[in-house]
């Protein structure tokens, strides 16, 4: 009677130990699978980052070699500049407000921004930035109604960014002379990628950086777009943050192809570029006290008058 329970309990104990061993073995196997799966994920992430860094380095190297080709274009051809700065007043008048996403925003209570006794326009952008690429076209047209640009460069937005290779000019190294306005153009970076972004080009002065910090931030622009480029301060009275139209309009075109349609009021490019130029002209006329009258009394310069505030 007492022997049987003993045998049973021994058998049960053995079974229990065997079951525990099987469970432990199973758990070990499962933990090995989990460890392997974790390792696979870590390796996948490491490979992605590694390949990206490698590719970035080769892209940078390729970019440096192709920049030699771009450098040949260097300064914009005089004929192209003449085409852009010489958009006819008839076309600008006909386009009027055009098709523009945003117009310069009035700044209330800011000190006047001047240089050499004239209202100053400060532009901060970068050559890689497709939105800056879009905004330079109307800025050049509008400012050319008040003065003359020299040494404008030719460039395009970064090849690896959104709206790649958007054709445009560069303000880096350009000069502007006017009896009415001063202009400072800052291109912070080229369109050549580096490990941390793009090659540095112009460094804003402390005063220019202060403008960006103060007015390219809430409450003047939405907090989420603070610090965005292109940014322009027009005499301390108006600001531009972001492009006034989509760079998509210029996609796949050369500077010559864009310039060629700027006198065609029916072109969507003209509606956007000339329309933005007209809004800028309206703002600039407020800075110059409506001088020169031939420009500031034109239909182009008055099309956005009621909207600028």
């Amino acid at each position, binding site marked *: 009677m*007492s022997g049987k*329970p003993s045998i*049973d*309990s021994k058998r*049960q104990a053995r079974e229990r130990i065997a*079951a525990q061993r*099987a*469970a432990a073995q*199973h*758990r070990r196997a*499962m*933990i090995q*699978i*989990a460890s392997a*799966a*974790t390792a696979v*994920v870590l390796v*996948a*992430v490491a490979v*992605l*980052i590694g*390949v*990206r860094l490698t*590719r970035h380095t080769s892209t940078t190297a390729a970019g440096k070699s192709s920049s030699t080709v771009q450098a040949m274009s260097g300064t914009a051809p005089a004929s192209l500049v003449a085409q852009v700065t010489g958009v006819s007043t008839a076309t600008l008048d006909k386009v009027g407000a055009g098709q523009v*996403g*945003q117009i310069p925003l009035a700044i209330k209570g800011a000190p006047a921004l001047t240089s050499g006794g004239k209202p100053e326009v400060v532009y901060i952008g*970068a050559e*890689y*930035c*497709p*939105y*800056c690429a*879009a905004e330079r076209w109307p800025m050049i047209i509008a400012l050319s109604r008040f003065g003359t640009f020299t040494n404008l460069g030719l460039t395009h937005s*970064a090849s*690896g*960014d*959104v709206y790649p290779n958007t054709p445009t000019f560069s303000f880096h190294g350009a000069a502007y002379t006017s009896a009415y306005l001063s202009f400072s153009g800052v291109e912070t*970076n080229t369109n050549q990628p580096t490990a*941390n*972004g*793009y090659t540095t080009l112009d460094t804003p002065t402390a005063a220019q950086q202060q403008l960006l910090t103060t007015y390219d931030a809430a409450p003047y622009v*939405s907090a*989420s*777009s603070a*610090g*965005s*480029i*292109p940014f322009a301060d027009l005499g301390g009275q108006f600001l531009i*943050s*972001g*492009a*006034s*139209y*989509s*760079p998509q309009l210029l996609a796949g075109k050369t500077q010559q192809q864009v310039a060629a349609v700027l006198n065609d009021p029916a072109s969507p490019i003209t509606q956007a570029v000339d329309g933005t130029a007209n809004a800028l002209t309206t703002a600039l006329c407020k800075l110059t006290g409506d001088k020169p009258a031939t420009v500031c009394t034109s239909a182009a310069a008055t099309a956005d008058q009621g909207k600028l505030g």
Partner: protein
Amino acid sequence: MSGNRATRRPAVPQHPTPAAHSTVPRPLPLLGLVLALAGLAIAAYLTVEHYTSPALLACPENAVINCRKVTTSPQSVILGIPVVWLGVAYFTAMTAANTPAAWRSGHRLLRAGRLVLAVTGIGVALYLVYAELFEINAICLWCTGVHVISALMFVLIAFGTALTSKPTSAGS
């Protein structure tokens, strides 16, 4: 008396019942729940941002870190569904699957479903990291937060499932 007790012991069920999975390490459900809720909060924030922020025609000062560029890219939609929605749905399901009760449950479908969710989550996260690095050329820090949480949840659930699993012959 003691002999009687010994003879009754075999009456204890030999096969584990669902309650056998109650050997879940205590921090596991808590950690899973915290991660799932953090992921849900970020996914909800990104969803609100996705629908309320106006289209920004501008480049941020730092060209590499650019959340707007990532969340408005073509890759931000998978099979016609915005990724932010998928994120909210994923973390909602993960929150439910990581409650203490869900971890204690031995229901095979639930355990398998949680594992499938974790694998799907890390798979999508890896694809999105690929898209950010190679197709969009920009990184969204909020999205990276979601990816890290997805990876942590994958590790947590993989090891949690391993630690609480029983041999098939034992009825698990």
